[in-house]
């Protein structure tokens, strides 16, 4: 990545990190209801892939989707608004964390059903293919989702029909409390797409440049009509599965080992070496200001009126 791009990727990752921390705090305060799955530690996957996308490409996300949204250029105020039930929210609070959509920036939707987005992304790729839009579709999901039947069914169809879909499995080692070694037979997720003839590669998901490069490698043949591709991004969520998670199923040593590879630290070190040390605090200040302003804009936005809940069950012709 050229240095300016790396700098902007760093800024995006920092925005995701600090937004997720703020969302976690708002949840603890009770300002956000329900549940939310934060992506702290996994920022480089979202940002690295988004850096390789072109205008018109589309993303289908999963339950852990705030980072995907922000990496696609989502507005922090509208994300917060969605979590806090405000008019400004991407879906005015109807969807919430796991069910939001921002098609204007290429995010078809997050999804509360594990694996539920995988056939939907495959269908978006069918549209792109048949309508000759030239778009590439990216589908984000976790290691746990690869155990759903629909994962296998979708990959099979995508390969049969040479669909332009890039599957990105964020392997963060766990599905809730269940480690990959107890859920994925054989232990090798890449063997699964390969069984369907899909070219697949594992990448260091803590290194935003490596993720971007892998995404570009995968997307080039896909855009040329060569069919689907698969990336397994090795990563780790530094936080709990959701806010109630006490993290009893993994060790503090393991966490510390992964924290040494914090994607933000790795990128910061690279930028410092390249002579950007002075700039970094400015970026952080700017991102913090951006988040504070977003929160203000969100709180200024009125709560979505309850009576609207009854509208829009059916689409108008």
């Amino acid at each position: 990545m050229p240095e300016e791009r790396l700098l902007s990727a760093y800024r995006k990752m920092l925005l995701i990190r600090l937004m997720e921390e703020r969302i976690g705090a708002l949840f603890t305060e009770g300002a956000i209801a329900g549940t939310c799955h934060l992506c702290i530690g996994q920022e480089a996957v979202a940002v690295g892939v988004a850096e390789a996308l072109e205008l018109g490409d589309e993303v289908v996300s999963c339950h852990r989707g705030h980072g995907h949204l922000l990496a696609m250029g989502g507005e922090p105020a509208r994300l917060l608004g969605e979590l806090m039930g405000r008019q400004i929210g991407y879906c005015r609070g109807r969807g919430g964390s796991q069910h939001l959509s921002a098609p204007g920036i290429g995010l078809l939707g997050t999804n509360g059903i594990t694996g539920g987005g995988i056939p939907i992304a495959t269908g978006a790729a069918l549209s792109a293919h048949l309508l000759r839009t030239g778009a590439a579709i990216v589908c984000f999901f976790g290691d746990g989702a690869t155990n759903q039947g629909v994962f296998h069914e979708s990959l099979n169809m995508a390969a049969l029909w040479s669909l332009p879909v890039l599957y990105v499995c964020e392997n963060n080692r766990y599905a809730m409390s269940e480690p990959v070694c107890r859920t994925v037979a054989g232990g090798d997720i890449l063997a699964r797409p390969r069984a369907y003839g899909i070219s697949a590669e594992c990448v260091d998901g803590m290194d935003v440049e490596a993720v971007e490069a892998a995404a570009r490698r995968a997307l080039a043949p896909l855009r040329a009509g060569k069919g689907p591709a698969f990336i397994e991004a090795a990563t780790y969520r530094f936080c709990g599965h959701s806010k109630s998670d006490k993290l009893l199923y993994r060790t503090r040593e393991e966490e510390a080992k992964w924290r040494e590879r914090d994607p933000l630290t790795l990128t910061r070190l690279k930028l410092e070496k390249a002579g950007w040390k002075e700039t970094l605090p400015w970026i952080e200040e700017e991102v913090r200001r951006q988040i504070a302003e977003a929160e203000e804009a969100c709180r200024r936005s009125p709560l979505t009126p309850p009576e609207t809940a009854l509208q829009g069950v059916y689409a108008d012709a």
Partner: protein
Amino acid sequence: MPEMYFSDAIRAALDEALTRDASVVLMGEDIGPYGGAFGITRGLHEKYGPERIIETPISENGFVGVAVGAAMTGLRPVVEIMFMDFILLAADQIINHAAKLHYIYDGQVKVPLVIRAPAGAGRGYGASHSQNLENVFLSVAGLKIVCPATPADAKGLLAAAIRDPNPVLFIEPKALYGARGEVPEGDYTVPLGVARLAREGKDLSIITYGACVPLALAAAGELSEGGLEADVLDLRTLKPMDLTALEATVAKTGRCIVLEEGPLTGGIGAEVSARIGERCFRALKAGVQRVAAQDTPIPSATPLEHAVLPSVAALLAAADRLFE
């Protein structure tokens, strides 16, 4: 009798079944050391080990189907679906297989399977984590559907469901996990198919189940202050339904409201009111009223969610209509 949380009563039933019957196994996601998303199986993995407490990958259609096969061949699986919404991934195995096999194989196999499903809204979890889907399963011949409203029933009905030789969908209202009540110790069962009168009155009947029972009791309290005494009938088993109890309460009061947390259209209330219309027409002094969720997906934001869920106010309005 000791007081217990609803959630602990469910765990007690599981624990006793695991002790009493070596063929009982639990299956589900994160039900091992983690204890399940709602902590229901906490401690059971330590006590019974991984051969009895079988943690599964996220493969609902697969592991429910595996449970069906195991139930046909000597085990008594109790499957946990983390949120009832996810049961739809396993709908094929439940509807096309588990519920039908005893009948279509002419009684040569049995499927003693329990599917536990935490259900219900009110927590801001959004559209895919808040549904009551019992109405979707109500028409499935061969399936029993149970939903307790008190800790004692949670224990007794689950114990009975596990001993039943048929597939039983056991719905756990998430909103009640933290409710407390007296629970009989030791081996305690409540028969399936028998409703319970949760409150006695003579002027109207509120027929309901699960998390709506407390709502009905709250409304009955308010109605009582206005001089109207309500029967509150807790169905407990939705299928097969206790028609005798339905008839008895309607014969007594002649006015009734059917209350549920799931959607109005095609809901449990549709079935109940049709049965009442068929069997108690002459006793009715007013049309049967239904109070249910609005026919929308469940929105996430709390004010929106409340706007689509049934409420005491909606019950009181329905009671007014009964006496118009």
